[in-house]
């Protein structure tokens, strides 16, 4: 790498720039759109030069959407709050349940353990639509429809298998001898789990948590069917921008910017930690 010729270096930079532009341009474009009115967005030809406006963000934050047909109430901020609450709680519950389960599956081969683990994974490859109808009925009988509790429960179908299977792999990578050594030193199995297994699988748990968070955040169909307006996350709430008087591109763009921000921030923050943790080669003595 050190001995790269200037030509190579330029070509390399060019290629990298192309890749970055290709992936970042839609986000950049959305970001620009969020500061434009519907008229400037739909003007032909589109222009990069415009007078920025904060009206989209103002509409989202105040909850008053001005359209040609009059003022509409939108619950975007509430949706955003729901998204954050549902995703964070679901991931937290999935971590509390999934990490110890992953440890058990990794360390103790008991009768039927593979079958149980596989059953949990199979929730991931059943199409949601397949279970949606019976689930709706059950939820109505149980009084769980349109409750945060019910939604978080259903979100475990998304988060739990993910966390279980990713974290299990990380636990399996830890040499059993390292845990034995801690046991023999006089520590209980629980202390060994807490002080040895958890820290060593830390990067894996963080990665699984992040992934589960993104999947939970992006969920649409469960929330659409099982929750009504006041419990819905942004993915469902964004439907409100398709109004009778046209699609509100400006508001959609600013809504996307706002709803992407938490995930993006989390990913950027966790990425630093992930790379650090993984490059430590933490598992090998």
């Amino acid at each position: 790498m050190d001995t790269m010729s200037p030509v190579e270096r330029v070509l390399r930079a060019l290629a990298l720039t192309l890749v970055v532009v290709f992936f970042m341009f839609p986000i950049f474009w959305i970001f620009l759109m969020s500061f434009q009115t519907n008229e400037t967005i739909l003007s032909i030809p589109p222009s990069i030069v415009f007078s920025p406006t904060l009206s989209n963000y103002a509409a989202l934050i105040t909850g008053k959407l001005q359209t040609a047909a009059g003022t509409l109430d939108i619950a975007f901020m509430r949706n955003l709050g729901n998204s954050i609450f549902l995703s964070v709680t679901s991931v937290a519950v999935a971590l509390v349940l999934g990490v110890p389960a992953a440890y058990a599956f990794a360390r103790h081969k008991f009768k039927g353990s593979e079958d149980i683990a596989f059953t949990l994974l199979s929730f991931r490859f059943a199409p949601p639509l397949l279970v949606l109808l019976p689930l709706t009925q059950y939820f109505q009988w149980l009084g769980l429809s349109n409750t945060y509790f019910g939604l978080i429960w259903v979100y475990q179908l998304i988060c739990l298998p993910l966390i279980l299977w990713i974290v299990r792999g990380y636990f399996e990578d830890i040499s059993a001898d390292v845990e034995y050594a801690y046991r023999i030193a006089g520590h209980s199995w629980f202390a060994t789990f807490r002080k040895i297994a958890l820290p060593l699988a830390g990067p894996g748990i963080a990665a699984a948590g992040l992934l589960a968070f993104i999947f939970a955040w992006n969920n649409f169909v469960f929330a659409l069917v099982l929750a009504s307006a006041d419990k819905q996350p942004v993915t469902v709430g964004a439907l409100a921008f398709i109004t009778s008087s046209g699609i509100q591109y400006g508001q959609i763009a600013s809504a996307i910017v706002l709803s992407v921000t938490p995930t993006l921030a989390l990913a950027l923050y966790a990425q630093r930690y992930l790379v650090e943790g993984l490059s430590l080669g933490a598992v090998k003595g």
Partner: protein
Amino acid sequence: MTTLHLQNIVKRYKSHTVLDDLSLDVANGERLVLFGPSGSGKTVLLRLVAGVIEPDEGRVLIGGEDMTDVDAEHRGVGMAFQNFALFPHMSAFDNIASPLTATRSSKDAIAAGVHKVAKLLKIDHVLSHHPKALSNGQKQRTALARALVGSPPLLLLDDPLRNVDAKLRFEMRLELPRLLAAQGATVVYVTQDYKEAMALGDRIAVMSQGRIRQIGTPQQIYNAPADIEIARLFGDPTINLLDVTPQKSGDGVFVELSNVRVRLSDYDGDVSGQSCVLGLRPETIVFVDASTPGAIPVTVEAETPLNEKTVTLAMTARGREILVSRPAGTPGPVAGPAHIAVNGAQAFLFDKASGRLLPRADMESKRNGEAA
């Protein structure tokens, strides 16, 4: 110090029996070496004593107390692993301190204990480093320090010198007996290196296929290996093994090597006519002049100078290969025809069919330490 008794231990993995009805007694303060080829069950046995593996049958008694169903953390043993098994996310200090933190000692007591053992093992200057930043030798010493720091009455060492280079291994082989003696612990030491076994063991238990084949002092095992396999495992260069049929003639038993009769003074007429394997340690064979009585003509094929000895590969007239070992620097033939003499009093006879050592007339007392 404590005693260790293993009674009729059986351990199976699926259909494979790793430990097959194994019993073993280790006396108070004794250093017992478990020696055997890989896959013979040494490590499994050690883990069973430590309590991280449970036996399918049999009992484990430490200090006379039945520990079979006791968890590892309550057995009070110290263990060093072959692959070190250091905690990668903790500093060397915290690694070594881990047995002390379990007993909720005070911070000062922990620091004092760690520094004392670290000084003993000459790693006090790297205590703040994480395992990643330690050299192989320092890792090995850290692992050893962790096993020693709590002064456990029973110390289990699973081939701790396996993963360090030859120079370090030699250094530690000299240092370990002194260290272990200072600890005053009962020690079970696993190794695949017969020199290590002989250097460190009060007694050696030779394991193979989940059983103890022979147990005794290093001298007993070297001087009276119970069977061909054990004779082959102990000694470098490997023992010479030649098919022979001893004959009784006059007042003794003789074997014929290249038409030269060698008298086996330790054996009597019982073995005559039996298909046997003659075991000759390379260091008991010497090069002699052709005129010496009993000289066997050979052709020297190759010579390998090792550090402290020179090993010569010679071929008899019938094409049998014989290794001859002599101290480095002493004269000997380099190539071509030469003559060797065999000391019949230092030869072993094994039964060809069973591989067992045939009883010698004067060896009864030495054979007492052998496993049945």
